[in-house]
C-alpha cells in the first residue's frame, strides 16, 4: 500500500497545483504563496476532508491540463500518515454499508491482500480527489489575498470542528490511556 507514484489528472492536477507548489520541470511556480507547503501535505488530509464533506470524485482524463505526479520518494515520506488516514477512512466510511467487523477488516486485515485492497484504495483515492476539490473551493478559488487565505483557513478549521464531535484533552487521555 502506498508504494507507487500518485498521479493526478485534469482539474485535480490543476487544483493540487494551486494548493501547493509543484516542482515539475518546465512548469513555473505559482506566484502567489500557496497555503500548503507541499502537495504531500495536501494528499494526506484530502481523503478525510472528502469524507467529511461527503465528496468523492473520479479521476479525470484531460489532455489540456498537465498531469500532476507525486513521485514515490515523496509518497514514502508520508506513507505512515496516508496509512493512518486510510485506516480512519475505512473505519468511518459507510460505502457498501459494512458491519463493524468488516470496517476493521478493511482497515487492518487486507493490507497484504491486493485483491481485497484494490477496491478500498479506489474509494480512498475517490475521497482524496473529492477532498482536493473541497480544499480548492474553500481555500483557493475565491481568495485574492493572504488575508482571504487566513480567513479561509480559520473558517475551514471551524467548520471541520463543527462537523465532527469535539472532545477535550481529558477525554482524549481517557480514550487512549494505557
Amino acid at each position, binding site marked *: 500500500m502506498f508504494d507507487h507514484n500518485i498521479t493526478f489528472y485534469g482539474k485535480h492536477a490543476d487544483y493540487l497545483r494551486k494548493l*501547493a507548489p509543484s516542482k515539475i520541470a518546465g512548469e513555473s511556480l505559482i506566484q502567489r*504563496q*500557496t*497555503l*500548503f*507547503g*507541499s502537495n504531500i*501535505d495536501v494528499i*494526506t*488530509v484530502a481523503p*478525510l*476532508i472528502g469524507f*467529511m464533506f461527503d465528496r468523492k470524485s473520479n479521476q479525470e482524463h484531460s489532455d489540456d491540463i498537465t498531469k500532476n505526479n507525486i513521485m514515490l520518494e515523496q509518497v514514502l515520506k508520508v506513507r*505512515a*500518515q496516508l496509512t*493512518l*488516514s486510510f*485506516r*480512519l477512512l475505512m*473505519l*468511518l466510511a459507510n460505502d457498501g454499508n459494512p458491519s*463493524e*467487523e468488516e*470496517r*476493521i*477488516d478493511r*482497515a*487492518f*486485515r487486507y*493490507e*497484504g*491482500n491486493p485483491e481485497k485492497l484494490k477496491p478500498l484504495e479506489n474509494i480512498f483515492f475517490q475521497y482524496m480527489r473529492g477532498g482536493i476539490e473541497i480544499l480548492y473551493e474553500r481555500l483557493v478559488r475565491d481568495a485574492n489575498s*493572504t488575508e482571504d*487565505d*487566513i480567513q479561509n*483557513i*480559520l473558517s475551514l*478549521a*471551524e467548520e*471541520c*470542528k463543527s462537523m*465532527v*464531535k*469535539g*472532545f477535550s*484533552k481529558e*477525554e*482524549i487521555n481517557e*480514550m*487512549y490511556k494505557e
Partner: protein
Amino acid sequence: MLIKRIEIKNFRQFKDEQSVDFCTDPVKNVTVVMGDNGAGKTTLAQAFTWCLYGKVNFKRVELINREVRDSLIGNDKANVIVRIFILYKERNYRITRVQKCYAKSVRGVDEVFSVEERKTNGDWVAYNPTQAYYIVNEMLPESLASFFFFDGEHINQMSKELLERRKSEHFRSAVRGLSGLNATHEAIEHFGNEGRKNSVIGAFARQIDTFGNRRLEILAGQSDEWNEKKEQAEKRLSEIVPEIERFSSDISENNRKLGEMTAAIKSRDLYEKLGNKNVQLRKSMEDIKKSLFKFFSTNFCEYIQALYAFDVDEILQETKKVDEGIPDITAQTLEFLLKRGKCVCGAELTSDEKKKACLQELIMDLPPHSLNIAIGNFKKEMCSVTRHGNQFFDGIIDKIKNIEALRGEIDSNDNQRSMIEDAIADQDEVKEINHKIAIAKQQNQKYTEEKIKCQVALNLAETKLKGIKAEREALLANDERNRKNRIFLLYAERVAQDLKDIYQKKEEEVRSDLEKNINKIFEDIYDGGIHISVDRDYNITTTVNKSEFLQDGSDIDQNTAQSYAIIFAFISGIIELSKKKRNGSKVDGEIEDDVYPLVMDAPLSSFDTRRIRQICEELPKIAEQIVIFIKDTDGDVAEKYLGDRIGSRWKMKAERPTSTRIERRD
C-alpha cells in the same frame, strides 16, 4: 655775445679771403646781406656753425672752393679757413677753424680749431683745446646754435618737428639749455639711481653692499627671502580670515535655521520612526503569515485525523478483535519456525506436538490472522495525532491574533503618520541645510588649519627677520664706512629727489613762460586770433581764439607764412627765456651778457607786405644783433621797414658759380 666780423677763405664759393663786418650798435643793430639765389647766402650762414662747432649741413660735404681744389697739383695744399670775431662779456675773441686740404685728399682730414682772446696789450692768447670747447659752448651752446643761425631749410626742419608733432628732443634740450635746466638735468642724471652703478646713488649703494662683508650680502638675501615669505603669509592671512568668518557665519546661520525647524524635524523623526517601525511590523506580520501557512500545512492533517479519534474509538470499542499478541511477530514468522522445526530459542519442534499446537494457536492471534497488534499500533498513533491535532486550532487562533495585533499597531502608526504629515519639516530643506553646515564646517576647518600654518609661517618669518635685522644692524654699526656711506646715500637720494622736484617745477614754469612768450610775440606778428600751446613734448598746437576767425576751434592748417611766424615766435620765445635765465643766475661781479645775434637766411620771402612790416618791427626787439640775408628783390622791402635799424649793408655777387664776392654796399 655779438659777432663783430667773419673772415672766410676758400670756403665753398667764397674763394680767397673775404670778410663781413657786422653792426654791434645797440640801435642800428641790423646787418643786411643781399644776394640772389645761389650767391651763397646759405653757405655764409653755414660758415658760422662750421667755425664754431665744426658742423655743416651741405649735401656735398666738400668744403674747399672748387676752383682752388682744381688748382691743386701734386703735393700742393690749400686751407679752408673761417674765423669769427666775437665780443663776449666785454672781451674780444677770435675763433678759427682751418681745414687743410691736399690735392689727393680734398676732404681735408686735418682740421684745426682754435680760440684766442685778445689781451689788453693787443696780443692774442690761445686757449687750450678743452678751454676752447668750453668757452664756445658758454658763448652759445651748440644745441642752441640752430636757433640763432638758420636758413630756409632749417626753418622747414623746425617747422616739421614743431608742427607735425615729431620727436622734439631738439627743442626740449634747447629749452633746458636756455632756461638753465640743463645743469639740473645733468645733476639728476649724475645722481642717478641704485640700478646705475656709475651714478652717485648707484655708487654709494654699491659701496654699502661691497663694504659690508659677505655676511651682510647673505643677510640681505635672507632678508629678501623672509620678507617675501612674510608678505605671502600676510597676504594669505588677509584672504583666509574673511573666509573663516564667512563660513563661521554660514554655520551659525544654518544652525539657527535648523533650530527654528526643531519641532518640524522632531515630527519628521517621529514620522520616519513610525514608518520604519511599520516596515518592521509588516515584515513580522508577513513572517507570522508564513508561519501560519506552514503550521496549517503541516498540522491540518493531524487536526482532521484527531477530529475523528472519538468516532473510531467507539468503533474499535465495539469489536472484540482487539486481543493480546506478541509485538512485531506475525503469523508468517511462526509458520516459518514450524516449517523449519526449530524455535528461535533452539528447541526442536518436529517431535514435540504440544509445542507445535501452542504455536499454531498463537498464529491465530497474530497478524494477519489477529489484528490486535495493528489496532494497538493504530490506537497509539491516534493518541499521538490527537494530542498534536488538538493544539492545531489554538495554534491557528494564536497566530491570527498575533497578525491582528500587528495589523492594529501598523494601522495606528499609519494614522499617526498621516496626522503629523502636514507638520513635518521638508526633508530636502533639512538635508540641504545640513549639507551646507557640513560643507561650511569642512571649509572652516580647512581654512583654520591653513590660518594656523600661515600664522606659524608669519611668526617664523618675523622672528627670522628680527634676527637678521639685529645681526645686520650690529654688522653695519661695526662698519664705520658702511655707516657713512649709508648717510651719503640717504643724502644723495634726498638731493636727487629735491633736484627732480625743482626740475619738474622749473620745467613746467619754463614751458609755461615759453608758451606765454610765443603767444605774445606771435600775436604781435600775426594779429593774434590764434593761440599756440606747447605740450610736454614741446609739440606746438595752434587753436583759433576767435570764433569768427575759422569755423572751428581745432588745430588749424598752417600755411608756410604762418608756420614761419610760429617758428619766429618760438625762436623769439626761446631767446627771451635765455635772457631771463642769464639775468636770474647772474653771479655778483660777473659781467653780464644777455645779448644774442640772430642770423637768418631769407626770412621774409614767404610773407606778404603787411607781415614783413610786422616782422621787421619785431625782430630787432628780440635780438640785439640781426644779420639778415635777403634776396635782391626783397631788399627794398627790408630797407623800407628796417631802414632806420640797418647799420651796414653788404652785397653778395656771384662772379661765377664757383666764386662769389662780398662787398660792402654802403
